């Protein structure tokens, strides 16, 4: 039996290697994010006052939706080629490789979106003084998105056309992160201190780290029963 660190590292390395070989697939959700931002600009109108005021909500909602797109593929490929069942059989304790998988995906979604946030802020006329808070909320809130999202992905991986169902299952769970994330940025724009909201976002993410891997484990085993 490998040490926990070795198990985590092996899985993490595997995920990133595979992702880098299909970079197009990894980029799609990010491209979607900016495409959707464009749609908002076109739909809502581009006066700095209007767009900038709604920027926190727009950024956060679109980050949620882009995450959903990425989540569909989290377990799908491994499920289809039989690797997932091997992981469930051999990878004990299972929560470590699961955590590694989600962490790798987070690097390509949550983390990537945080790094791209300044660009999004620019496009949405988000005031510069709120940018720091924006990055902070995305950084502390996105792990919860990836982890709770993984639960939904694990539950639906065995289903054909699981995509919309995935969204239905997970979006209610995203509500607190959305509220605190967008709310914090809005408050920051008004000059209010938002450390409480940042702590709450972090707390939700911490909770998801403790709860989600076990739910994902159970869900993966359940999904594998079907084949």
């Amino acid at each position, binding site marked *: 039996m490998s040490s926990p660190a070795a198990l985590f590292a092996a899985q993490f390395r595997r995920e990133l290697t595979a992702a880098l070989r299909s970079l197009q697939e990894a980029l799609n959700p990010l491209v979607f994010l900016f495409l959707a931002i464009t749609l908002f600009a076109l739909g809502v109108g581009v006066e700095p006052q209007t767009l900038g005021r709604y920027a926190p909500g727009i950024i956060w909602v679109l980050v949620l939706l882009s995450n959903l797109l990425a989540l569909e593929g989290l377990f799908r490929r491994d499920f289809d080629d039989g690797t997932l069942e091997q992981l469930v059989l051999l990878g004990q304790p299972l929560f470590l490789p699961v955590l590694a998988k989600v962490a790798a995906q987070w690097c390509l979604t949550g983390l990537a979106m945080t790094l791209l946030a300044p660009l999004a802020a620019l496009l949405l006329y988000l005031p510069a003084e709120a940018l720091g808070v924006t990055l902070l909320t995305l950084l502390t809130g996105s792990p919860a998105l990836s982890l709770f999202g993984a639960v939904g992905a694990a539950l639906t991986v065995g289903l054909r056309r699981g995509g919309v169902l995935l969204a239905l299952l997970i979006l209610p769970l995203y509500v607190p992160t959305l509220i605190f994330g967008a709310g914090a940025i809005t408050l920051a724009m008004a000059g209010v201190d938002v450390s409480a909201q940042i702590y709450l976002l972090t707390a939700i993410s911490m909770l998801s780290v403790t709860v989600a891997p076990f739910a994902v484990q159970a869900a993966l085993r359940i999904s*594998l*029963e079907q084949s």
Partner: protein
Amino acid sequence: MPGALLTVAGLSCARDGRVLFDALDLSLRAGGGLELRGPNGSGKSTLLRAVAGLYPDYTGTIETAESLYLGHRPGIGALLTAEENLVWYAALRPGGEAVSEALARVGMTGYERVVCQHMSAGQQRRVALARLLVCPARLWLLDEPLTALDAAGQDLVRGLIETQRQAGGAVLCATHQPLALADAGVLTLGPAA
């Protein structure tokens, strides 16, 4: 039974409303081999998956030693090279042969750096077989291991099975084509005639 690598007692299982098997008993000891035969849908795959631990809806008991399961899907990541796949398996369950030796034994030397999606189905199957060598296991659960393999590949499978049995392991194998294992039992599933 002490020393048995696999003991199944009173196993009953129904799937989609059909009874697949009822009060099934079987056991395998070191060196044992058992072929599962039967028409499609007779429950061979379900039995293997239940023994592997992937299918929980049965009554009865199953006790196994450390096992490896090779199912319909090869368990090989298409975006990774043969080497990367096997290195990952070695990390999940260390203690078997070295990756390069395993690849050599399945006749895939030189393919270490080849990404698996660029290989043929038969070659991917060979890489899948290599993981039986990379990960130690006393019991092998094989579901149609001859699929997608040419005659040489099929002989390879037979050879690997024999080596495993001689080393004190056991093999439970579902197959349509006869494996012609020496000294092995045959269990035929399906509706009673």
